[in-house]
């Protein structure tokens, strides 16, 4: 059992959904980003998505775009992502969330090796599909990392089957057709997507895109195994620093424990 498997076993035993928090490394500085990730965990986040800053974040909305742009301008390097994973994984499981080119550039083998050495559990790769992932799947397997691909409302049953069969750890269900960002309501297509995904896999299904508060987290926790929150954490960190991050994590954490 990997660390993520154990985590999901325990949240399932508690009869609740897991809470996942995303922040990009290097925003507003390396130190502050790591402090905020640790603060998230101390305030109720179950595991962390450590964001690899990338110049062309195609599936991210304005909040995350601005943050990763700032991180890169401040000189953040991919090597620091592994440092951040090391720091965070002392407190909770950590997966990286990274676009494909920085991984390919380092080579899948070396990236996987360094992620494992840092104590990482796996990688979410939003612009990589299983069909293009041969080298990555091999490297992830060798280093016992969970490869996590996404499903979307437009995914056919055939594709849900491929992703369900290929993933380890969990399946990331994008709640809506769109980019990251907070939304007033979480798309009702999310629940249907989770149900369809479950027909093809026994892995936990995590829902991301759009969740920003405890009430939304409770709603999603009613049908998913995990709730992923990104832009709202970035905005909290930007506007209110560590305190705001802690408050948001506590609110969300209460949400995933509430029965909607």
């Amino acid at each position, binding site marked *: 059992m990997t660390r993520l498997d154990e985590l999901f076993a325990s949240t399932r035993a508690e009869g609740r959904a897991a809470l996942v928090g995303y922040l990009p490394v290097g925003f507003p500085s390396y130190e502050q980003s790591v402090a905020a990730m640790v603060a998230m965990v101390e305030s109720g986040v179950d595991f962390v998505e450590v964001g690899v800053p990338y110049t062309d974040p195609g599936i991210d909305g304005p909040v995350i775009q601005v943050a990763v742009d700032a991180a890169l301008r401040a000189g953040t390097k991919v090597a620091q992502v592994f440092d951040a994973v090391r720091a965070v994984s002392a407190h909770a499981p950590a997966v990286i969330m990274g676009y494909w*080119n920085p991984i*390919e550039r380092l080579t899948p083998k070396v990236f996987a090796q360094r992620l494992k050495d840092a104590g990482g559990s796996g990688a979410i790769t939003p612009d990589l*599909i299983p069909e293009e992932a041969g080298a990555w799947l091999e490297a992830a397997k060798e280093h016992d990392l969970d490869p996590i691909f996404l499903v979307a409302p437009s995914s056919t049953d055939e*594709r849900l089957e491929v992703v369900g069969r290929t993933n380890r750890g969990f399946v990331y269900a994008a709640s809506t057709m769109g980019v990251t960002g907070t939304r007033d309501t979480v798309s009702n297509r999310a629940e249907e997507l989770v149900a369809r995904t479950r027909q093809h896999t026994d892995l936990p299904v995590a829902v991301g895109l759009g969740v920003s508060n405890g009430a939304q987290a409770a709603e999603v926790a009613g049908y998913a195994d995990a709730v992923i929150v990104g832009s709202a954490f970035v905005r909290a960190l930007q506007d209110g620093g560590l305190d705001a991050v802690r408050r948001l994590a506590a609110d969300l954490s209460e949400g995933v424990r509430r029965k909607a």
Partner: protein
Amino acid sequence: MTIAGAAPELPDKSGHFGPYGGRFVPEALIAALDQLTREHEKALHDEVFLAELDDLQRNYAGRPTPLTEAKRFGEAIGARVFLKREDLAHTGSHKVNNVLGQALLTKRMGKTRVIAETGAGQHGVATATAAALFGFSCTVYMGEEDTRRQALNVARMRLLGAEVVPVTTGTRTLKDATNEAFRDWVANVETTHYAIGSVVGPHPFPMLVRDFQRIIGVEARQQLLDRIGRLPDAAIACVGGGSNAMGLFHRFITDEAVALVGCEAGGDGVETGRHAAPLTAGEPGVLHGARSYLMQDDDGQTLDTHSISAGLDYPGVGPEHAWLRDQHRAVYRGVTDVDAMAALELLAKSEGILCAIESAHAFAGAKQWVAEQGRDDLVLLISCSGRGDKDVDTAARWFGLVSEQDIERASAVRAAQE
């Protein structure tokens, strides 16, 4: 026939040209890409589609475009030169070839909105034009920097009824406009077709755009055979994303004696690092949905590019060019801003043809290539991919044809009118 006979062997079923191409996109887009692949495949064998496209190309876009012998320019560079006149196609560049094909596909898919990215604005203008013709709504993403240096084309797009969205993220040029177009597409894919403007992006775009641009080389090859009874020694084109070059080259790939020469934007000089020449000085990587040559740093971050030409100012390039490069079937070279502008002037003054700054890179590259061959009997086929109206402002400043005072006075008049 317009696109019949497209060489089917590459890409393979999953969109790869050897190690290049493929699909590196969010899962949310896969269904739409599959739909587009199916629709394209069907269209290639559908007499009705081919007839409709042929009619549009002839009677709307003005194809076939002429093949012009450039005698005085040829004398100046020491070769016999023929120009494929894409500048005379409707909207002023080759971009219309691709857009008419994609507009027909959009209609067949039942979609009612098209979006596009644009650098020089030529693809944006072509897309806005097709949208007006087909009754689609149209949004064009353009880097803020490019809306400034290609202001004429912004006005053209708006006159044609398109919404132009200036993109203020990242480097504010074509790369970031492409990111924004992808984001729009993910959110609106059910009603919207993303008409990519070059042979870039995830499969099937590099293949699909090539198939629609292939007519450039098909026509030119026949025209040249009819005119002089032989094939050229070289086919030469500028390379931004690579669509006019791929369109010119493709029919000649199996004509092994014909050299294929692609001219990238060398900016301040490839050795300075300030350029947009990934095939000349980049390395393989993934950007905008495909693996190809790419300007990137050691962390795989995309590098800033520099070129006087908005249409070539792009860190990536189509995957089929990467393949042709590795196979040594085509050669690529960087052409500096200075050399391109000198060639623009030479062509204007020797032939009375004011070409786009993008196309000028091909003319400069042709001159250099001829000088390297050490022969005086060469026949060149050069893609004149677009006309230079949009670039008059940039060129006037470059050659000092207007004083700062003129510019200030003109902008004061404009401000007063607003």
